[in-house]
């Protein structure tokens, strides 16, 4: 199963269209594919819209020189469209962020960050990235390969 990735040549970002579903609400978003992020992160406003609770503290995350308190959440489903026209549902633990200070500027800065699909998700997929020929996609790894990687 393959998922098409779309290259935004103006912003120089790789993006994937998805639906994110929490127990409370579903929203459509563009996820930015970021191999430099170890975790999948949801934008602040979107996390509020999805009613994700800031309960399970999960360490400090630094982005662009600012530090944020992260919270983990395991009840999110992310829906992808396969290139064959089917939906693929993945349960991925996500992190949501809050500023460590109460400055409004910090909250605005945090809210300007996109939703990020991180390396935790990419462990389940092979990334093919040929920007020149616009052939960019994720391909689900076979279950036995995933099991071998988990064993190692």
């Amino acid at each position, binding site marked *: 199963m393959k998922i098409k990735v779309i290259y935004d040549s*103006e912003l*120089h970002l790789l*993006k994937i269209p998805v639906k994110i579903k929490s127990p409370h609400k579903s929203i459509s978003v563009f996820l930015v594919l970021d191999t430099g992020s170890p975790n999948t992160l949801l*934008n602040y*406003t979107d996390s509020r819209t999805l009613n994700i609770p800031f309960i399970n503290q999960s360490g400090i995350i630094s982005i662009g020189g600012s530090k944020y308190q992260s919270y983990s959440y395991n009840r999110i489903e992310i829906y992808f469209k396969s290139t064959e026209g089917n939906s693929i549902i993945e349960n991925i633990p996500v992190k949501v962020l809050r500023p460590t200070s109460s400055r409004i500027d910090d909250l605005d800065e945090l*809210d300007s960050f996109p939703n990020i699909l991180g390396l935790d998700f990419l462990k389940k997929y092979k990334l093919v990235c040929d920007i020149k020929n616009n052939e960019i996609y994720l391909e689900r790894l076979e279950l036995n390969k995933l099991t071998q990687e988990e064993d190692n």
Partner: protein
Amino acid sequence: MKSDLEMLEETEQNLIWFAENSGKIREEFGGKAVAIKDRSIVASADTGMKLLGELDKLGIDRSEVVVERIPNKGEIRIF
């Protein structure tokens, strides 16, 4: 109510449109959060939270749009 696949198809079309027009969109909406629906910008605001208020005023539910943050012109964002 739309099916999951219909929602995904719409979101994909909106993303393709956005990627093809992100230069022009950035010229007009750099530094703002925008709401995208049916391959057009239907609302914008300085922050995502303010944008939700604008959508409320327009009677548009968040689930009907894609919200995207637009970097300022010339700004390269590294996360």
